[in-house]
């Protein structure tokens, strides 16, 4: 029997509507009990990062986390781990390390690898690799179309059987609406959602940043919001037609939020997520041509940011996902037109979104819900049970006030393309617990790799 007692923390679990001082007892990978009240037996304080830590007991250990928040394990349903094919940017091991350092107990990885994850066998390979690494749980997202070309359906049934969490041609847009309709109908037969990168690529053309005054002044080609909104509207229409679940990922424009809000009101089967960087940055950041601000969808205007935050608060947006997209120097040390799109995000998501909490734009409880619900939203299930007796012990423990300075030389991801370099933020992941194992400890770092 393996037991961990987490003491003196403040449990906030929106999935089970818990908010209060509890001790959480983990036994054999599952949550065994939740006890009311603070246990003052432990003397060390993990709530501040100076001290804390675990104390070995007879059958296991106790962790004193006074001052810290105990939350259901965070989930990031949109990441790129680049393996196979682009291991110089990231691989499954470095990606899963980055995940647990960011507080994520489960993540999804996108299929735009080389070869593309468009088959059951590649999905199986990814899952085996992730198991041998341990750390965060991995949920590969399969492809909608073979090699993401948008011409032929990928082996959706095989991918579902192998354990795909959803299907997506992320990074590419499915321009053929008939193919998208069939993919959605077929995938829903296997219980898989379409996770769509919404972009009308003809309208987007060769744009590299948000269309508007900043792009005009910088002499850069614009990606209009309308290119995203046209596809959001199409997907909503296809969902209405087929009843299939469309999850619209990395939504960036106010118009998209309004369309999704209206669709949800009509009980159309759509859900959505947005990224931390779209919540705190605008296209003004592109001035200076730093390619670490080149993302797709692009950083939009202040009005868009405001509407995204409103969408998070009112439930139009169901989850926060990082779109963690590692790129090497050879991909980023180029002119703004030719540099690759994408920023890394898993290790900065929490403090960046906490900024909104500190600014009173988002409640702490809702933030936790947005971080914890990704797989439940994507799979329309109670996959993440939260902190309740019998659930898998996937827990994220963090504090909200510790100062952190973002320093790309001190991260676990293999790439350094963060737009937040040098930012001074508040909030720190203290412990990440997956299946009852402490896989990340803010003092000891990542637990030695070992399989499940």
């Amino acid at each position, binding site marked *: 029997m393996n037991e961990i007692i987490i003491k003196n923390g403040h449990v906030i679990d929106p999935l089970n509507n818990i908010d209060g001082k509890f001790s959480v007892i983990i036994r054999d990978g599952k949550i065994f009990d939740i006890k009311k009240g603070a246990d003052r037996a432990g003397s060390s304080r993990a709530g501040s990062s100076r001290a804390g830590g675990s104390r070995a007991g007879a059958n296991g250990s106790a962790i004193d986390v006074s001052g810290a928040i105990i939350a259901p394990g965070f989930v990031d349903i949109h990441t790129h781990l680049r393996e196979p094919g682009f291991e110089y940017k990231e691989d499954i091991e470095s990606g899963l390390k980055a995940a647990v350092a960011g507080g994520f107990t489960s993540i999804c990885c996108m299929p735009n690898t080389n070869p593309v994850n468009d088959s059951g066998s590649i999905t199986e390979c990814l899952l085996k690799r992730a198991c041998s690494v341990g750390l965060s749980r991995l949920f590969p997202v399969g492809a909608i179309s073979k090699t993401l070309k948008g011409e032929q359906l990928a082996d959706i049934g095989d991918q579902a059987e192998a354990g795909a969490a959803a299907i997506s041609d992320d990074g590419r847009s499915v321009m053929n609406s008939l193919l998208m309709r069939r993919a959605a109908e077929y995938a829903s037969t296997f219980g898989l959602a379409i996770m769509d990168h919404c972009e009308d690529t003809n309208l987007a053309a060769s744009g590299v940043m948000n269309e508007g005054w900043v792009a*005009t002044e910088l*002499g850069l080609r614009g990606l209009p919001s309308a290119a995203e909104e046209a596809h959001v509207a199409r997907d909503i229409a296809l969902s209405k037609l087929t009843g299939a679940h469309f999850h619209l990922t990395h939504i960036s424009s106010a118009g998209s939020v309004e369309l999704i809000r209206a669709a949800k009101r009509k009980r159309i089967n759509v859900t959505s997520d947005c990224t931390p960087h779209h919540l705190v940055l605008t296209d003004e950041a592109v001035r200076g*041509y730093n390619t670490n601000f080149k993302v797709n969808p692009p950083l939009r205007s202040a009005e868009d940011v405001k509407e995204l935050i409103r969408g998070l608060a009112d439930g139009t947006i169901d989850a926060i996902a990082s779109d963690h997209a590692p790129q090497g120097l*050879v991909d980023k040390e180029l*002119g703004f037109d030719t540099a690759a799109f994408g920023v890394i995000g898993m290790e900065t998501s929490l403090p960046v979104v906490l900024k909104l909490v500190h600014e009173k734009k988002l409640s702490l409880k809702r933030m936790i819900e947005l971080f914890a619900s990704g797989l439940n939203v994507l799979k329309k299930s109670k996959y993440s049970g939260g902190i309740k007796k019998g659930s898998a012990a996937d827990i994220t423990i963090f504090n909200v006030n510790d100062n952190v300075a973002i320093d790309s030389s001190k991260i676990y991801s293999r790439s350094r393309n963060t737009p937040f370099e040098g930012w001074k933020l508040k909030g720190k992941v203290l412990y990440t617990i997956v299946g009852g194992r402490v896989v990340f400890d803010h003092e000891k770092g990542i637990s030695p790799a070992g399989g499940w």
Partner: protein
Amino acid sequence: MTLSVKHILSARDLTKKDVDLILQNARALKEISYRPIKKVPTLRGKQVLLCFFEDSTRTRLSFDIAAKRLSADTAVITKSGSSMAKGETILDTIKNLAAMQADIIVIRHKEAGVPWEVAKAFPQISVINAGDGMHEHPTQALLDLMTIQDAKGGVAGLNVTIAGDIFHSRVARSNMILLKKMGAKVHVCAPKTFLPADIDKYGVAVHTRLENAVKASDVLMMLRIQMERQDGFFFPSAREYSKYFGLTREIMKFAKRDLVIMHPGPVNRGLEIEPEIADGGQSVILDQVENGVAVRMALLYLLCGGKEHE
């Protein structure tokens, strides 16, 4: 007096005093080009690196001639002659350039922002932006300003219209900034496909009918239609473009008698402007070319530490 800037990157960075200083020196240095021996030793021993990573004939020649008239040495790097095509990143290329110990780097690149990267990487070397993507072309704006002043005796209060493909034009962007700064009233005229988002934020009057713009203008700057950039359905055909947006003798009936006509070249004769007008008495197109050499001489001179030219 010296320049307030180390680099010439954007028309935005120049103060009015800088602009006056540059043009005053350009006028003084222009005379050298008319001597039997067109060379002075002013910049002897100085190295000017001409990095033209995008095709250019006139601007490159203009800089080359300007440097040589002042006795500076020039070396030219072009896209095809460099290893850029072999997977080198821009920063790599630039690091190699700096190792060659240039005093001034003149750079043209098809991507906006690259001259800033160069300037950031080598704070010791003066960088001149000779055109970056659709962004800026400050030396063109300076030579255009000089030409307007020569033709009109000043620029403040004049109505200057920039017409044509504003969207793709770095010439238009630099000119809007510089002309506004120097007190001109700036108008733009183009079909809506060629007007970039929020163009009115430059503080310019926006027209879509050329006759309306022409009526109001003292100076009319026609932009080149860059046929190589017209893959995005900007207009139906060259025939239709010239019919509705080209400068024709028909449109010239609306013009003031002393309207001055400019074009940054090379001219698509018969597309954006009728040949008779390009070659006519109101055209100052060749003066622009001439002033280009003078302005670039002045910039090289001032960036190499030159003081006001006596």
